[in-house]
């Protein structure tokens, strides 16, 4: 169903008229811009793109695009997207999620999506907080971050999504900052084009519940080294960096999981032979 490549798409062709519900200053506005910019750069027809999500601020993105979208239940977007992509390999499939939806309730699917390596792009807007439920700690929140639900902090160590992705078999791993929409768009173009499961963690500040994250713009920096295809090396770098190292960090060569859906080789009636005595 791919369209003639002659059509030149503009960024606006990928935006819907639905007004976002996000707070003024939310990092996710810039992520929406980056996604539409990347799709225009790639030039895939909007109707050939599906944007799949779960629940949370970041999961609202599908309706703000002019692509096919699915805003499903909390934490299950990767599974829904995998079913779609396996059934419809002709589509470009993006998943938009957040640190709660993606790493807490959806944690198991994250591991298995990396492992399964279906050719799709997982975009996680990490703001280290549950924003839609008004400020609770997520799996990436600092242990001493105070909140009504966990007074004095959780005391729990935040985990490293990028390292988990590498250990689980993701084929492309990158970190970007929402405040740099051009840089993010460039990485997304590469992620979408890279075969297999691509994981892009976007540091996207929650200005309402984590105003301290406004400082991120002064903390981020471009990764000082080239991407590697050695997962162990990439993991070591990520484990030891300051968490604000941006860029493509890992490019793998694993073949994507895509069971062949051929044409029927037998009539349905032929399957009955096995039951006939």
């Amino acid at each position, binding site marked *: 169903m791919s369209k003639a490549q002659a059509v030149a798409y503009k960024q606006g062709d990928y935006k819907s008229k639905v007004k976002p519900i996000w707070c003024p200053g939310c990092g996710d506005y810039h992520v929406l811009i980056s996604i539409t910019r990347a799709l225009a750069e790639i030039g895939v027809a909007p109707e050939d793109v599906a944007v799949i999500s779960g629940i949370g601020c970041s999961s609202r993105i599908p309706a703000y695009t002019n692509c096919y*979208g699915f805003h499903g239940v909390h934490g299950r977007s990767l*599974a*829904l997207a995998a079913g779609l992509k396996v059934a419809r390999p002709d589509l470009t499939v993006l998943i938009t999620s957040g640190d709660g939806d993606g790493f807490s309730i959806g944690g198991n699917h994250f591991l298995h999506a990396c492992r399964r390596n279906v050719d799709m792009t997982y975009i996680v807007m990490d703001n280290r907080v549950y924003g839609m439920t008004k400020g609770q700690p997520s799996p990436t929140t600092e242990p001493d971050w105070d909140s009504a639900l966990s007074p004095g902090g959780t005391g729990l160590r935040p985990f490293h999504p990028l390292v988990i992705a590498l250990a689980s078999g993701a084929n492309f791993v990158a970190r970007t900052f929402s405040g740099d929409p051009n840089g993010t768009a460039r990485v997304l173009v590469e992620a979408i084009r890279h075969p297999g499961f691509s994981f892009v963690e976007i540091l996207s500040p929650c200005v309402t519940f984590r105003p301290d994250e406004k400082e991120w713009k002064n903390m981020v920096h471009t990764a000082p080294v080239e991407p590697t295809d050695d997962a162990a090396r990439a993991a070591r770098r990520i484990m030891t960096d300051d968490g604000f190292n941006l860029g493509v960090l890992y490019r793998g060569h694993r073949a994507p999981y895509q069971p062949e859906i*051929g044409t029927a080789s037998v009539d349905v009636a032929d399957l009955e032979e096995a039951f006939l005595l």
Partner: protein
Amino acid sequence: MSSSKRNDAGNPRQSVSIAIVGSGGTGALTAGAMLLEAAGRVGLYGLMTRSVGPQIRGGEAAALLRFSAQPLACMGDSYDLLIAIDWRNADRFAAEIALTKDSVVIGDPRGGDMPEMVPESGARTAEIAMKALAKDIPGGRQNMIALGVAVGLLGLPEADLFAVIEKQLGKKGDEAVTASKAAIEVGLAEAAKLDHAVPLSVPSANAEKPERWMITGNEAAGMGAIRGGIRFAAAYPITPATEILEWLAPALTKVGGVLVQAEDELASINMVIGASFGGKPSLTATSGPGLALMIESLGLATAAEIPIVVVDVMRGGPSTGIPTKSEQSDLNIAIHGCHGDAPHLVLAPLSVGDCLFTTQWAAHLAEAMQAPAVVLSDQFLGQTRALIERPADVAFIAQRAAVTEAVNDYRRYALTAEAVSPMAIPGVAGGQYTADGLTHDEAGTPSSAAGHHEAQLDKRRDKIETFTYGDHWADIEGEGEVAVLTWGSLTGPAREAVARLAEDGIKARLVALRLIAPLQVEQLATALAGCKRVLVVEQTHSGQFYRYLRSMCDLPDEVRAFHRAGPLQIRPSEIDAQIREWRS
């Protein structure tokens, strides 16, 4: 369809029930399966159900079989013949193998202690040293001796059994075939020494042999899915549903479809929702614990109007319950499990063979109404292997009202006369929309407005409630002022009970629901018109079906609920007795 008549040895019976038991690894189930296939070759009807413990190796195993020249809907009341390869762990299934003084019980003198139930029943007993006899045959196995004994006592032709042996063991080589045949010959010779025959009325050898299928309900559900147009499945293993998925995995590939193994049931249902969103009719299969995990997403499929089929092969519950044994106790969660008002379809196959039709019909209905359909099979239907006539071809196939050409001003959830809105499939220009579990307007845009909420709730209710389901909503048989009202796999025992009553001149109706939700209230009232007494029969501890009926419709004045938990399936004689007792 009558009961096993307690005739003297020598007179053929209408049906014969046989149990072959042994500890895990003795091959009781293999012997049972071969006996079933041999009977099928003769043109008999038959059923074989397994009773096994949760152990993979070393537990107890019982092959429970029943044969007749007439179609069989359920297991019998008691067993005519019990062959114990050994008696280890026999106490675990003693309650499931009812014996009478007319039963014949054969054991191995070195097979351990005979359980109390045998002498208590007054059954006739005999000893055959199956293990010792097998040792004298190179490569001989005791289960093949047991098989020879069974065939000998039944009076089935040896040639048909040998044909099965050659087919089943041929790939293992000539030695395996020769050893098995030799062991069977020994078993036949031992049977000839006994005066305990349980002969069955076998169709005449001259009669034209009808086409017979040998199939389990789980295989039939898979076949029905493919006949109905299902081309994508997602799978997470769970007893007793796994065989549906294992059958579908290679079968789907052959018909241009695909099966994906998921990491859990939360994933498997979301995978089928995703594939169906992409335009592929999709199915998953599970059992109670898996259905519980899927429920949130079943609500998503309802709200987003994505057709999917979920086959729930029910087992004992709650929690882990009895994974290997049957119950009908997922009825409540299947109908009422979703939060919010979430109308969807719930169906139940009425026999092993009907798993094919009902799953096929479910695929058709789900696609026609863009709604999820839950098919409530159970361990008995799913894992019983049956000899049946080839299920008829029916025209039901997945046919979705879809937008396949470029459109303008598309509204995914447009309010239409039939309440079903044409669904744009990704790839169609101008059809872009976001499927959403959030309340939405006609265009699919999220909304929390009261008007939008009510309009879409009405739409999702109306499309299901105003659909014309035709005659398949129930099987209705017989006449009279008494009715047995049941559903799903309890239809078999109920049908046999009604037939027995009819033999004695007692008129009774059978009303067996295949479409559980939406309940066809008016049609049910018509089916029960003129009835004074209704016996509601089901395999649940609390009477879930009875309570559901009571909440939904008026029933005749005198209604009795007859139900109990699994795994002891309610027997035809118990239903029969309920009706007779009520009349007197």
